[in-house]
């Protein structure tokens, strides 16, 4: 069977839509795999996803079960990352925390990226008054520090993981809107948009089918690079007691609890800190790798 072989993917004259698309992804995937940092980043993210998916089976202990006779034990063979002040196994809590982290990152990306993308594309495409109004709103959001704005939203909405997600999403979209608008401006006067308008296509169709696909690759890169910041903001909110509430094993909240013991029982705050650093690094590496692969100028050459 010729299908799914290397030649099939790289065929210069694809026989179907499916093959043409598969070929594009195959080339991008190949480039990504040749970039060592991207592979490391991808492996870390894959590890995070697998850990989150199989948390109850991987974790040696319960994430919330307390054992006061075993409180604040240092790392050992039984408790690889030690235990916290209520005798809970920190490794198990970090593993369960992966679920929360992944949920925050995914939901923020799903809410803020499309929102920013559409606002930016509409703003850049129509220009004029629409542009002024939308970018004015964007500037208002951009002019405030992210964490402070998120704090204000959480304070208004009430503490909790859902509100933290909403607050982070609300503070994250303006940057995406700016990028999408800048990208849109570079090609909204170009002939292929004009040609599509001449065909009688509606503005909605042009924005959705022609403008957005050209903005998405830079958006994917930017979102991936921002993931680290999102995790840190979520951890910051958790640390301040405004994100996930106890006993949820959120990494930021865990660091916050460990702060009290940081001099004598360093592992309580350090272990979830390592997890945050590792995952943030993973997203940064992957984002850098994606930038090399998805850059439209590269795509034109390959």
């Amino acid at each position, binding site marked *: 069977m010729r299908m799914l072989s290397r030649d099939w993917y790289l065929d210069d*004259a694809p026989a179907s839509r499916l093959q043409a698309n598969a070929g*594009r992804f195959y080339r991008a995937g190949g480039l990504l795999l040749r970039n060592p940092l991207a592979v490391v980043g991808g492996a870390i993210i894959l590890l995070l996803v697998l850990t989150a998916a199989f948390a109850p089976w991987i974790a040696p202990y319960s994430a919330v079960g307390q054992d006061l006779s075993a409180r604040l034990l240092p790392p050992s063979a039984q408790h690889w990352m030690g235990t916290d002040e209520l005798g809970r196994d920190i490794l198990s809590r970090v593993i369960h925390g992966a679920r929360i982290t992944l949920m925050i990152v995914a939901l923020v990306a799903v809410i803020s990226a499309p929102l920013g993308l559409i606002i930016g594309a509409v703003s850049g495409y129509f220009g004029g008054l629409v542009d002024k109004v939308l970018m004015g709103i964007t500037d208002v959001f951009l002019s405030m520090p992210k964490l402070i704005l998120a704090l204000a939203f959480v304070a208004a909405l009430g503490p909790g993981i859902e509100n933290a997600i909403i607050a982070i999403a609300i503070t994250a979209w303006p940057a995406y809107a700016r990028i999408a608008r800048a990208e849109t401006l570079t090609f909204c006067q170009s002939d*292929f948009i004009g040609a599509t308008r*001449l065909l009688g*296509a509606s503005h909605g169709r042009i924005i959705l089918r022609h403008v957005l696909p050209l903005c998405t690759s830079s958006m994917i890169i930017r979102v991936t690079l921002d993931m680290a910041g999102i995790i840190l903001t979520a951890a910051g909110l958790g640390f301040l007691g405004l994100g996930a509430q106890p006993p949820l094993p959120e990494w930021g909240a865990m660091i916050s609890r460990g702060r009290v013991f940081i001099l004598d029982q360093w592992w309580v705050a350090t272990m979830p800190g390592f997890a945050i650093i590792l995952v943030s690094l993973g997203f940064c590496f992957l984002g850098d790798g994606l930038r090399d692969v998805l850059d439209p100028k590269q*795509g*034109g050459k390959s």
Partner: protein
Amino acid sequence: MSAISLQDLDISYGTAKVVEGVSFDVAEGESFALVGESGSGKSTVLKAIAGLAPDWTGGISVLGQPRGHRPDRGFARRCQMVFQDPYGSLHPRKTVDTVLSEPLQVHGLGNRDARVEEMLGAVGLDRRFRFRYPHQLSGGQRQRVAIARALMLEPKVMLLDEPTSALDVSVQAEILNLLKRLRAEQGLTYLMVTHNLPVVGFMCDRMAVMNRGRVVEIAPAAALHDGSFSDPYSRALYAASGGTAHD
């Protein structure tokens, strides 16, 4: 009934008036050229007819129907445009197939597979090009795709904005032959912008010479053989392209 009729057309970009008082008629089935130097406003006239330069006053009618200032669906079925730069007129992330199917989708026309294949054949592209991306095509092939896209809705009037000036010489000849053949086969009316007088001699029946936003002379293409231009600017343009007047 004339295919394209312009009455006293003024076009501006912002506050700058780039075209003033242009009037001419193109008969159905005719091939009409707009010639002139860069910046004379010839492409702007095409854009106004197409609806991409909405800031105009005067009258534009295509196939007897006056047109509005913006592109509209009904107009799209009657009149289409081919752009100068085949590198900029195709979406970089869409396959030939998607580009050619799009007009059919927009207008809700069926039987897309067969129509796309048929059109590829008509513009002389092998069917193996169908699922390629623009970056996998040469300039001439891209321009064939752009012509195919314009013809998908079976328009009667084609606006050609220097369709060959971005291509190298041997490919230019191929595209010009293709355009000539398509016109004969489908009974198209061409309004073509060019600054290349030999192309006018090869493709067109009549031409309008433009200078600084005005039409200075409308002459038959035969004038290119004997240099019988009446306006001094047309004579200068003719002389500059290597022709000598025989009068």
